[in-house]
């Protein structure tokens, strides 16, 4: 991890001595203090700077800095760290963008405030040359808003015209410019219909709420991009001159790799060692490890379990199985039709209605009264009827809901997920890691009671093993001291054996696996079998409750898993899931095909094998411990273990949709009244200046109250 190659990959591009780390476990002020004190006792680190909100630490170092040592130090202090490369470092990516947004808001805020100051005396009855002068000052103060603060809306409106999708930016720009031109014409003609103040405050509010939404989304994104599917790592490559270490990005076809226990395999290839145990749950959801023999295929993204082995690389990066999934994913997400939300629909209608109304009004009023008055009223209608609720009621609701979800451990990438969640009819779960914890545990044994001595022997035999079964034994009997075993041996694919008190003991897998959906191992003494142990992937403690809860809410519930049929069926029985919707032994492509057959389906999963399905589903959710592929292909990530978050998500979605609708109803009513008044000629700048902020204020209050 400390080769020059590795370091240069993570070095900050514009500062040689700086590295960025993502640090998990920051809780409070003392954590910041602790981390920032590091330079005092570590000579190789000059400064440490913590960004608490994004959980990011920036470190300035001297030449003999070692990444591995720093990560060890973090671990000692109780945190988990990971270096961030240039592309992963979202904080820096968004920095420039955030600063510009903030500047635009500041300019808009300052100008709006000052315009209001100068308009108050005019409303108070000031007339004559002072009033004209004040209005001209307002005009000047409006220019920075028009030509600086509003720039993002112009790009948005331009895109909306170019791609022929109506978005809310277009009416905002139209209202802004109508308000400006209308007011300026009246200012020049020395009339009183001047709307600089209402238009400016409207724009300021929209800019601020949008910034709020953006900040919350950025935070969410930086969290969810944490775990890498195939981490950039150093790999031992065997050459004629011994082994050299290489960055996994630079492995070539034909290289011979030495894979260490617990390492994620970086490429597809064939096994050169006699045998190997590989955890493939990430790739296909199978809960039990696979034992591979010489000459068999090894896949990138799977994990070496207990013994290091040699492999010959045959395919790298995008040619690997997992690489193919990634590229399908990228193509699919481009093909996916954009989801049009309810408020976008309303926005389109509203724009159409307001504009046709104002054109009609112009001619009708023109015919009956005069065209001068007609123009006044038609333009007043456009300014007044600008969709407030759509322009900032919706983003504000999204922002607050996103924050609330975040507090409950639900990371959401896009606000319109809430609306999609409401439409869900069917929910599919992946099994391993989603319904279950992904760890094996002992469910039963024969004979029913096991002597402590046998337990000690088993623990002794499994002492060094990293096989999932070894963990299951250790968890079950954590209070037993392992026995001292001599001649200990691990035979890959078979089990472990050793000597104790002059007898030969072994723990071996038993063939009875598969009948009951359990995995079985036996303890043998010399040639006699002493006991059988049955294992299963245990359910999360809250899975049953959540499934029951969802079933009561009339959702169709199913399982799609890559695991063996009898194991999946056993789980389906346990949590009472309808057999019609249980699919087992599915490849990633098969999962995708199943999802395609159901409308409004929600998929919840964690593995790379789920990623195609997650991407296709109406709502894709990845759970804690997921690999980055499923994170990237899903819109929602649960950061807490278990499925309770799903119930929370449904609750928040319903609440936010309700608020969205009350806001919309209120705004439509308000716009209707304001529009009618404008058409009848009752609206003057004072009325607009009172009406518009009040409607905004009510919408803000309603949103806050609803999401408290």
């Amino acid at each position, binding site marked *: 991890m400390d080769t020059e190659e590795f370091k240069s990959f993570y070095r900050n591009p514009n500062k040689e001595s700086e590295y960025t780390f993502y640090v998990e476990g920051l809780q409070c002020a003392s954590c910041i203090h602790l981390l920032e004190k590091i330079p*005092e006792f570590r000579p190789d680190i000059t400064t440490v700077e913590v960004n*608490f909100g994004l959980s990011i630490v920036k470190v300035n170092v001297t030449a003999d800095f070692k990444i591995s040592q720093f990560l060890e130090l973090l671990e000692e202090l109780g945190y988990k760290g990971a270096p961030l490369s240039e592309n992963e470092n979202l904080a820096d990516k968004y920095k420039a963008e955030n600063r510009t947004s903030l500047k635009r808001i500041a300019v808009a805020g300052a100008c709006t405030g000052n315009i209001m100051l100068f308009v108050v005396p005019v409303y108070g009855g000031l007339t004559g040359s002072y009033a004209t002068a004040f209005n001209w000052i307002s005009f000047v103060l409006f220019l920075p808003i028009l030509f600086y603060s509003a720039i993002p809306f112009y790009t948005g409106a331009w895109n909306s015209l170019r791609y022929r999708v109506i978005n809310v930016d277009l009416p905002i720009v139209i209202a802004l410019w109508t308000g400006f031109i209308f007011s300026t014409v009246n200012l020049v003609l020395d009339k009183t219909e001047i709307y600089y103040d209402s238009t400016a405050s409207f724009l300021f509010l929209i800019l601020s709420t949008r910034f709020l939404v953006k900040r919350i989304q950025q935070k969410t994104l930086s969290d969810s991009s944490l775990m890498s599917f195939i981490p950039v790592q150093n790999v031992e490559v065997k050459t004629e001159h011994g082994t050299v270490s290489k960055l996994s990005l630079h492995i070539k076809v034909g290289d011979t790799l030495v894979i260490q226990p617990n390492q994620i395999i970086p490429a597809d290839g064939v096994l050169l060692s006699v045998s190997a145990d590989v955890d493939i749950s990430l790739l296909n959801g199978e809960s039990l490890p696979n034992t591979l023999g010489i000459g068999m295929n090894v896949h990138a993204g799977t994990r070496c379990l207990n013994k290091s082995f040699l492999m010959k690389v045959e395919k790298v990066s995008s040619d690997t199985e997992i690489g193919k999934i990634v590229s399908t994913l990228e193509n699919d997400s481009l093909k996916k039709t954009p989801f049009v939300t309810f408020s976008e629909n309303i926005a389109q209608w509203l724009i159409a209605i307001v504009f046709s109304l104002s054109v009609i009004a112009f001619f009708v009023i023109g015919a009956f009264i005069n065209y001068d008055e007609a123009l006044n009223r038609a333009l007043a209608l456009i300014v007044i009827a600008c969709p407030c609720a759509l322009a900032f009621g919706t983003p504000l609701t999204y922002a607050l809901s996103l924050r609330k979800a975040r507090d409950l451990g639900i990371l959401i990438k896009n606000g319109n997920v809430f609306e999609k969640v409401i439409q869900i009819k069917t929910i599919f779960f992946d099994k391993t890691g989603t319904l279950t914890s992904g760890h094996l545990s002992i469910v039963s044994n024969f004979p029913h009671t096991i002597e402590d001595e046998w337990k000690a022997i088993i623990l002794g035999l499994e002492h060094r093993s990293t096989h999932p079964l070894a963990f299951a034994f250790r968890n079950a009997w954590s209070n037993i001291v392992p026995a001292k075993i001599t001649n200990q041996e691990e035979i890959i694919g078979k089990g472990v054996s050793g000597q104790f008190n002059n007898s030969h003991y072994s723990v071996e897998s038993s063939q009875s696996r598969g009948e009951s959906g359990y995995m079985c191992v036996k303890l043998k003494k010399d040639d006699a079998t002493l006991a059988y142990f049955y294992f299963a992937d245990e359910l999360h403690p809250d899975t049953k409750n959540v499934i029951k809860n969802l079933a009561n809410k009339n959702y169709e519930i199913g399982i799609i898993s890559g695991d063996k049929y009898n194991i999946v069926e056993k789980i389906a029985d346990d949590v009472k899931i309808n057999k019609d919707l249980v699919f087992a032994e599915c490849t990633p492509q098969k999962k995708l095909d199943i999802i395609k057959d159901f409308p409004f389906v929600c998929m919840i999963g964690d593995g790379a094998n789920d990623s195609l399905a997650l991407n296709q589903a109406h709502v894709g959710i990845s759970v804690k411990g997921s690999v980055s592929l499923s994170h990237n292909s899903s819109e929602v990530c649960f950061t807490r273990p278990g499925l309770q978050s799903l119930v929370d998500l449904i609750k928040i979605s319903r609440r936010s949709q309700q608020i969205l609708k009350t806001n919309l109803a209120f705004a439509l009513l308000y716009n209707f009244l304001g529009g009618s008044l404008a058409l009848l000629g009752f609206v003057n700048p004072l009325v607009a200046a009172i009406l518009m902020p009040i409607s905004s204020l009510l919408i803000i209050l309603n949103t806050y109250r609803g999401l408290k």
Partner: protein
Amino acid sequence: MNIILFMIPLALIFAGGFVAAFLWASSRGQFDDLETPALRILIEDKNFDLNTKNDESNEGSKRGVT
């Protein structure tokens, strides 16, 4: 009322000055991170017994994590 001819430009210059100050601070990174400094104020900066405090906060964070 002549005073107004002096006061209004003055007010506008003031306003402009504050906007300029904000823009300057913003481009220097003053508002990049709004959460950490708020917590940093709780840290004592002098005569801090590093070792004992380290252990405490370390344990605290470990407790929090698990």
